């Protein structure tokens, strides 16, 4: 077992070319974290992925059938990260997470078995992500998940799998407004259940996020620029989760 590494899912859909996003984000992970990276993908996407030394691939038959805004959403296999990860300590990242710093390395020096963000920072200043009224429990952000191979982490991932297979029931139980499967809520519910309906450790920072209506206008090795409603902005050496899938073509 390798001590530590980064894992990301990258599976194209009919609508979105995640491999093109991966060609931007995977090199940043390699450069700024200096850890081995494993990309979980499927047979169709694999040939399009960038060939980067130190990046391994795990091929799965991904589950389909989930949708967001009427479009295919391949997010149904995240709970398998625990079994798929070749690392003792894993940082699981969304493929549209742009890693521009080494801040996340700090997580590998902790004793925590499982950490996620419970706060987000909208870098456009629009506070687009206040979902507190959309469910009975606070949401967490499954964009970045740090976990160790441990009984606790395994229990959380197993709980997510169980919640996923009974998602309609759990959606009703926790009064979640969104009826499609969302890992953010599945992990929030699993964390609450496994931790005895109490508090659980979280990443002590806010996840910087560029919302979907902000269009990325340029990307380079040090940061990116964006525009929204005629306003321009930029981020340098700041980790950021980019929702705009148009970033694939920038």
């Amino acid at each position, binding site marked *: 077992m390798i001590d530590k590494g980064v894992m990301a899912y990258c599976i194209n859909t009919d609508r979105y070319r995640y491999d093109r996003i991966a060609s931007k984000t995977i090199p940043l992970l390699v450069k700024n974290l200096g850890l081995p990276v494993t990309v979980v993908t499927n047979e169709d996407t694999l040939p399009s992925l960038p060939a980067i030394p130190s990046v391994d691939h795990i091929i799965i038959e991904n589950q389909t059938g989930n949708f967001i805004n009427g479009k295919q959403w391949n997010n149904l296999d995240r709970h398998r990260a625990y079994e798929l990860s070749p690392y003792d300590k894993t940082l699981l990242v969304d493929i549209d997470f742009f890693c521009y*710093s080494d801040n996340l390395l*700090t*997580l590998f*020096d*902790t*004793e*925590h078995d499982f950490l996620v963000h419970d706060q987000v920072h909208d870098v456009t200043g629009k506070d687009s992500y206040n979902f507190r009224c959309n469910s009975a429990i606070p949401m967490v952000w499954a964009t970045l998940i740090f976990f160790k191979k441990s009984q606790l982490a395994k229990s959380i991932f197993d709980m997510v799998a169980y919640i996923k297979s009974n998602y309609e029931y759990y959606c009703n139980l926790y009064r979640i407004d969104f009826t499609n499967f969302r890992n953010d809520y599945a992990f929030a519910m699993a964390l609450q259940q496994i931790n005895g309906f109490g508090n659980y450790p979280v990443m002590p920072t*806010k996840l910087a996020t560029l919302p979907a209506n902000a269009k990325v206008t340029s990307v380079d090795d040090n940061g990116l620029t964006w525009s929204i409603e005629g*306003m321009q*902005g930029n981020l340098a050496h700041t980790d950021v989760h980019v929702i705009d899938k148009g970033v694939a073509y920038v």
Partner: protein
Amino acid sequence: MDISKLKQRSDRSYAIALEKQNALEKAKSRMILAHEGHLFKADAETINLVKTLSEDSETFVMLDVNDNPVLVEDPKALLYDLKSKNQEVLNSYHQLYKTIIETR
């Protein structure tokens, strides 16, 4: 003053406030450090607590960012790490802040 100039002024102030907020969040993200397997914020409160407690005792217990108790057995090392991280981050924030003000 012409209303368009006032609007320009308002837009500039908004842009500065937004860039400052992003720079501050960036600094806060950078201010986290791990010590003995626990996470701490290298902020003024933590530095002051460690400094104060270490004046009376060679070891003490404090809370990490997730409210877990930590026995600090080497307060000097922790204080050094906290101060170093704090100043590294705030210096960067200071430089960035100056750039924001000057370029806008």
